[in-house]
């Protein structure tokens, strides 16, 4: 098992290197750089340009050098904890993004947790009450939930909130906490607002997992060993949870490695619709204004988050399913 984990971590390294290259290539794609646009903009407005500062920054990041040198510098700095400088915010990148990455991770992980918390019991109910009214209801809701993309759901929730209840469902904090430093009250306020994005991000996947859980469990319940156990007089509850539920859970656990990237992606776009102070809107802004180090840091960190969560889910699967050979 240890050897398996070490090997997996070992495999992560080339993946991360390629990811960093693609991230860098993507942010470098647009012609020109932030400075050229910014200087032109400032000069057009007859504003004083701090040429010295800009030149210093340019030299530090080697913007005048070839792309691979810039990449090398970028990666070298990141390895030393320096993510670069956000032109737009006039601050080091790590100061700008720390909180936003954290909030994105909170939303993604909470949503993932909620998905399983809802999908597993509902899936079990649906399978054990096959073709009942409840099952049909669950099936219909699941199908609609599957078809409804996150951001459309966010849009509809916003609309209903505003048009019917006359409340704004946007944002993660009440106005008095938005720029306040962290405190117990702010965390409480966050929890009050968290449910909307969590619902939005999680609905599609919850619907999907309900279907998977139902299908797996039905397959499992049809197997002869279940009938044998029933013939022996095992109580239905014991019968259900002893093996079939556990076997049916395995595909759900292995699906975690696909789910987490989806959550992070989903959180990004939902955040734009709901106007959340997470990575989404800031990444969008950074991409638009060619704030390369900010955008690059976001993409790199989101990808790294994804790779790590994939690893975690694989380890979880290896640990939960004894049939997996990790040698």
């Amino acid at each position: 098992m240890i050897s398996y984990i070490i090997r997996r971590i070992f495999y992560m390294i080339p993946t991360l290197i390629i990811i960093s290259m693609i991230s860098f290539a993507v942010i470098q794609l647009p012609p020109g750089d932030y400075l050229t646009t910014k200087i032109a903009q400032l000069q057009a407005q007859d504003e004083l340009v701090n040429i010295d500062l800009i030149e210093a920054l340019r030299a530090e990041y080697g913007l005048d050098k070839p792309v691979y040198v810039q990449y090398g510098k970028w990666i070298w700095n990141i390895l030393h904890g320096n993510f670069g400088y956000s032109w737009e915010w006039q601050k080091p990148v790590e100061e700008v993004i720390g909180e936003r990455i954290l909030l994105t991770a909170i939303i993604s992980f909470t949503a993932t947790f909620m998905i399983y918390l809802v999908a597993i019991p509902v899936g079990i109910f649906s399978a054990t009450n096959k073709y009942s009214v409840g099952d049909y209801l669950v099936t219909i809701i699941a199908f609609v939930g599957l078809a409804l993309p996150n951001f459309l759901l966010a849009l509809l929730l916003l609309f209903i909130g505003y048009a019917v209840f006359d409340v704004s469902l946007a944002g993660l904090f009440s106005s008095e906490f938005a720029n306040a430093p962290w405190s117990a009250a702010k965390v409480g306020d966050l929890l009050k607002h968290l449910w909307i994005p969590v619902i939005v991000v999680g609905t599609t996947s919850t619907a999907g997992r309900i279907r998977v859980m139902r299908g797996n469990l039905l397959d499992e319940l049809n197997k002869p060993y279940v009938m044998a156990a029933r013939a022996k007089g095992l109580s239905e509850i014991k019968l259900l949870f002893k093996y079939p539920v556990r076997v049916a859970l395995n595909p759900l656990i292995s699906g975690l490695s696909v789910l987490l990237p989806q959550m992070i992606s989903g959180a990004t776009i939902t955040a734009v619709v709901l106007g959340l102070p997470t990575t989404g809107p800031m990444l969008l802004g950074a991409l638009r204004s060619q704030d390369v180090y900010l955008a690059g840091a976001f993409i790199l960190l989101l990808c790294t988050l994804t790779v790590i969560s994939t690893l975690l889910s694989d380890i979880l699967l290896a640990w939960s399913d004894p049939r997996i050979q990790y040698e």
Partner: protein
Amino acid sequence: MNEPNDTLLSVERLKKHFPIKKGLMRRITGYVRAVDDVSFRIRKGETLGLVGESGCGKSTIGKLVLRAMKPTAGRIMFHLDGREVPVHELSDAELRPFRKHAQLIFQDPYASLNPRMTVREIIGEPILVNRDHDSEDMDQRVAELMELVGLDSRYLKRYPHAFSGGQRQRIGVARALALNPDLIIADEPVSALDVSIQAQILNLLHDIQQDLNLTYLFISHDLSVVEYISDRVAVMYVGKLVEVADNEDIFRRPKHPYTEALLVAVPRISGERKAHAYTLSGNVADPANPPSGCYFHPRCRYAKDVCQTKSVSLEEISPGHQVACHLASELELKGL
């Protein structure tokens, strides 16, 4: 070599080892010896039965002879009208013309027929890819083959889903016969069928062997089937042959304790209780980590000290009867 000239296939010191990879760097830490130093011969027109418990490597031998996989070591020689074909070292290009001399009958009559092809396409495929006949001829040939295996040739345009398991196996036999092969390897050809159907397919195999002068390598775990169809029998245990003899010798006068143990397990209709009835205890040895000495000694009721230390090889104890047992000459074993 002065081989008798009626030999069709001779296999010498054949080995197939699968590497086991372990650890961080996926180092090869050992080998599964699926087939380990196996030699045998099949004469033209005879049926050699190959028996053993599942996992002993008998199907691997079939695949090696057909070159569905490459042997690790050893020679597979095919004797065709005076010519010798070294099957073990043929390249992919050289293999294709050889294929029509040896064909396979599969175990599973469902998985072995492409459900998306008609019977005509399935039986005709070997003819088509080897350009044996032109297309008008092919219909005729396929119809002939269908009649030969006892299928109504009007069913040419039907798909496999129209047929029962036994009928499907007949289609599989017809496909194997399409190229007029010399050797047919039948890998558990009846074990997936109902007992009542098994006899029909066995009779079919027997009849076409007479009519077409075919040679069979008949692989099975079922001794009663092997007894019925084979001229000679080879018994296999953990990658090695432990006894090779004529049908009569194997079943009436076995010389290896493993053969005896297998025979005891064969159900008989006679009312008498077997006085020496006992069952094989323990599990088949792990081919990745076989026991010392004779591989069978942990399960052998006659085992002595020598069996634990000294390895055994196949030796001829009487004409045409080979055994790999230290105690072959002392033991009095019972047949059926």
